[in-house]
């Protein structure tokens, strides 16, 4: 049963850095797992905290936000705001005893194809260890 588990990781990647980084990983033919479901956003700060919750409740086993490195955001400070919003969701998850490890924030620049592949691989492994998101099978939501 365990072997068949393919995680689904909803990934919000900012257009200017992380999404381009993911693209680069692709064109460089770096291996990264199919578990990553990329969604392009204009900036990491576009990710309303409710997006994370929605993805989690819809059964995503992991949710990733990828943004530019601090100081490099195309809109200057978007990623600092994104980090604060992300911290609230983490804190709500922790207080509710939900697995906050299912949420991840990572800074990946446009030139960091290899880093993208590494984060994707490592995170997928982490999620494999955690197993399926309990919301995946829950009838009640």
């Amino acid at each position, binding site marked *: 049963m365990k072997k068949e588990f393919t995680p689904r990781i909803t990934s919000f990647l900012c257009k200017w850095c992380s999404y381009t980084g993911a693209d680069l990983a692709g064109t460089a033919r770096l291996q990264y797992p199919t578990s990553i479901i990329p969604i392009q956003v204009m900036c990491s700060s576009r990710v309303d*905290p*409710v997006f994370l*919750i*929605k993805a989690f*409740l*819809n*059964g995503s086993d992991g949710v990733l936000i990828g943004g530019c*490195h*601090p*100081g*490099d955001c195309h809109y200057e*400070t978007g990623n*600092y*705001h994104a*980090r*604060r*919003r*992300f*911290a*609230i*969701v*983490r*804190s*709500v998850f*922790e*207080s*509710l*005893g*939900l697995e906050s490890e299912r949420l*991840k*924030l*990572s*800074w990946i620049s446009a030139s960091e194809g290899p880093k993208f592949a590494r*984060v994707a691989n490592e995170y997928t492994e982490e999620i494999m260890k955690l197993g399926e998101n*309990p*919301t*995946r*099978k*829950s*009838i*009640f*939501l």
Partner: protein
Amino acid sequence: MTDSERKGAVLPAAKEPGDAVLDFLRLAITKKLADAVILPMKVPSGDSYAWILMNDISLLDDAVPIAATMPVQGAKALRSLTRKGPGNLTVIAVMRPCEIRAAIELSKLGQVHPDNLILATYDCPGAVQLQKYVDDPAGSEKRFAEMLQKGKPDNSAKPVCHICEDFSLFDSDLHFGYLGLPDKEMLVIAGSDKGLELLEELGLASAEDLSVWEKGIDQLKADRIKARKSAFKETEAQLRGFDGLLSVFANCIGCHNCQSACPICYCRLCYFDSETAEQNPDALITAASKRGGISLPVDRIMFHTGRMVHMSLSCVSCGQCSDACPVSIPVAGAFSYVADQTQRTFEYTAGRNDGDPLPLRQFRKSELPGVHELVKDADAEVSSHE
């Protein structure tokens, strides 16, 4: 204003704490230091209270400054008055500390303009749950009179009152203190420069020593802090994990009353009532087929967790959400507990008037280690940009 700088005045003796407050307000209006006041008054049917903005001094006779229950959160009344700006008249509002704390949060959100308001609080023993009050107004008044005497909530009070640490002077302009003092004694304490100015102009006898009152409050506070710790532990255990969350909100009928009664949720159209939150039928059918079935409407847990994420940083633990819930879900217990944690994350306390902006309106370049991986890389990156 720190504790040691606190200044206060002694109010002339009156029968009840509420009467002393009324005398004070009459004086302020007569001396033209305030144009109007906002106070609770019994509704004509006699089984509830409403906020009345009044400038006719004779109406004060019917007002009940320290009311037994709190039907509409006072911050909502202040928002409806000052949403479009501060206005030109000086208005004194006497409200519970959690109502003033909510008003302070709303002022940071641009929803209340406090410039010409004088926000006054009093030592709050707790408030009778709305449903209990409506069921038995006369009995509730009696019980509240006892609570007022002892300074402690009884079991008709809202559960959050038992765990409220900030039931006395917090960050209001004026505060009426009587707990711990001998019978019929009442102090009025300035909590801000605005409050102090008013006290000085009124020319009341200044209070030499606030320590008896302060000691009384500290004693009552200690009980509530203890109760808070153990209540949070219980709530934490109940909410634990996805199943815990489901079971606490199991009976939720999705009416969103908790959100409409909440003073902090001011959004004209809540995201969770908006078109954007509606689901696509095919996606739902897919979701159902993956699970075998799915409960409808699907957004129940999303609504509650989403609300926690949206507003818990400003939650003042006032208990209005629980009072508004038709199926007795301990909404406020859950929100107070979660809010305690989210506010801790940013070292923020909702309701403080210390010039600290809302956590989401600011950031530090280097902060929150551990929320993203490779903290060291990021820090190195930051310093190179500073």
